[in-house]
């Protein structure tokens, strides 16, 4: 009943809220973040298209740096394939089966952490569901977002998926050994596209097949905040500079175009 005159009309209350719709996810993500910090783990949310090479990147990481203690959870709609590959590579890993869900959220990761092993871990990788749209908006409690982008996906992906690439702290351009077969894909065009959606376009070029660039990626994992993207070496200031002719991106491109000879 109306509380002004008692006329029987419904009493409508209007309340200002100003609360993030994903605030409950954010709360659980904060809990996950405390968990990772307490155990001294660097938590990475690894995203990218299906087939971008996320699992292969982790396998190559393990081969290049067996002393780096990795662990992972892999989001997958229906199979255990990725986690199985990682376990075969020597990385403790479990699957988060998402069913029809196209992304991981903080709650799914939180449940998975309850089943994670007790061994000390340096880098905990949350391998997200292959998708360049949905995973971008869910905080999982990670320290850094890494997006794997393969050279065969074309040079304009950053412009097509600005939300994902804006969320990225680092883009790993994968499958660079295939660059000779995709002549219209130039890593510098991808870097230029990234600069239009990512204020600090940090990109590393990696081939899990040949191992090129994996050492730089491992250096980044060991010290993400202090990594100098101008020289692809650890540095105290970590400020982005221009592309370095000696970087794997550049050497691959120059070799591909013949200008490096």
């Amino acid at each position, binding site marked *: 009943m109306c509380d002004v005159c008692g006329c029987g009309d419904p009493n409508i209350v*209007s309340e200002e809220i100003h609360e993030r719709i994903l605030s409950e996810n954010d709360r659980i993500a904060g809990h996950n973040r405390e968990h990772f910090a307490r155990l001294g783990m660097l938590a990475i949310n690894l995203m990218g298209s299906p087939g971008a090479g996320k699992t292969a990147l982790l396998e190559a990481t393990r081969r290049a740096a067996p002393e780096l203690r990795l662990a992972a959870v892999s989001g997958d709609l229906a199979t255990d394939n990725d986690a199985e590959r990682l376990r075969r590579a020597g990385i403790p890993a479990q699957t988060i089966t998402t069913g029809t869900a196209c992304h991981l959220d903080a709650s799914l990761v939180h449940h998975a952490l309850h089943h994670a092993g007790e061994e000390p871990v340096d880098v905990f990788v949350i391998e997200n569901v292959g998708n360049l749209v949905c995973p971008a908006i869910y905080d999982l409690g990670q320290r850094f977002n890494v997006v794997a982008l393969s050279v065969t996906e074309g040079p304009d992906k950053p412009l097509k998926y600005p939300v994902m690439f804006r969320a990225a702290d680092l883009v790993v351009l994968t499958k660079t050994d295939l660059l000779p077969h995709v002549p219209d894909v130039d890593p510098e065009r991808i870097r230029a596209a990234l600069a239009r959606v*990512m204020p600090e376009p940090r990109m590393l070029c990696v081939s899990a097949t040949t191992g090129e660039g994996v050492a730089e990626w491992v250096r980044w994992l060991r010290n993400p905040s202090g990594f100098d993207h101008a020289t692809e070496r650890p540095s105290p200031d970590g400020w982005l500079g221009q592309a370095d002719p000696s970087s794997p991106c550049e050497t691959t491109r120059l070799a591909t175009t013949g200008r490096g000879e």
Partner: protein
Amino acid sequence: MHEYSIAASLLRQAEEHAQKHAASRVVRLEICVGELAGVEVPLLETAWSLVRERSLCGDASLAVRRQPARWECGRCGEPVARGLALRCERCGAPARLVEGDELVLERIEMEVA
């Protein structure tokens, strides 16, 4: 297609506020969706019309305010144009997003006894 999960979060959030006020039903929600929030408004509206069924929000309307993205220099505050590299033309520092990534419940209207 994550708009259903966002609509479900919105429903839970609205019902919590409604229960706090002992409301008999929610009449209207106002939300803000930024251009870079990663949410397609028509899909969210469709999802909302489905998830609200048989709840306190059963006939609650959803008013969506869209917020365009706006960038400025993270160092000197100069506006940074979209469509080009996100760097300040004046001092060269990286841009920062001032607004445009919001996904916020702004206001709720509910009927109380």
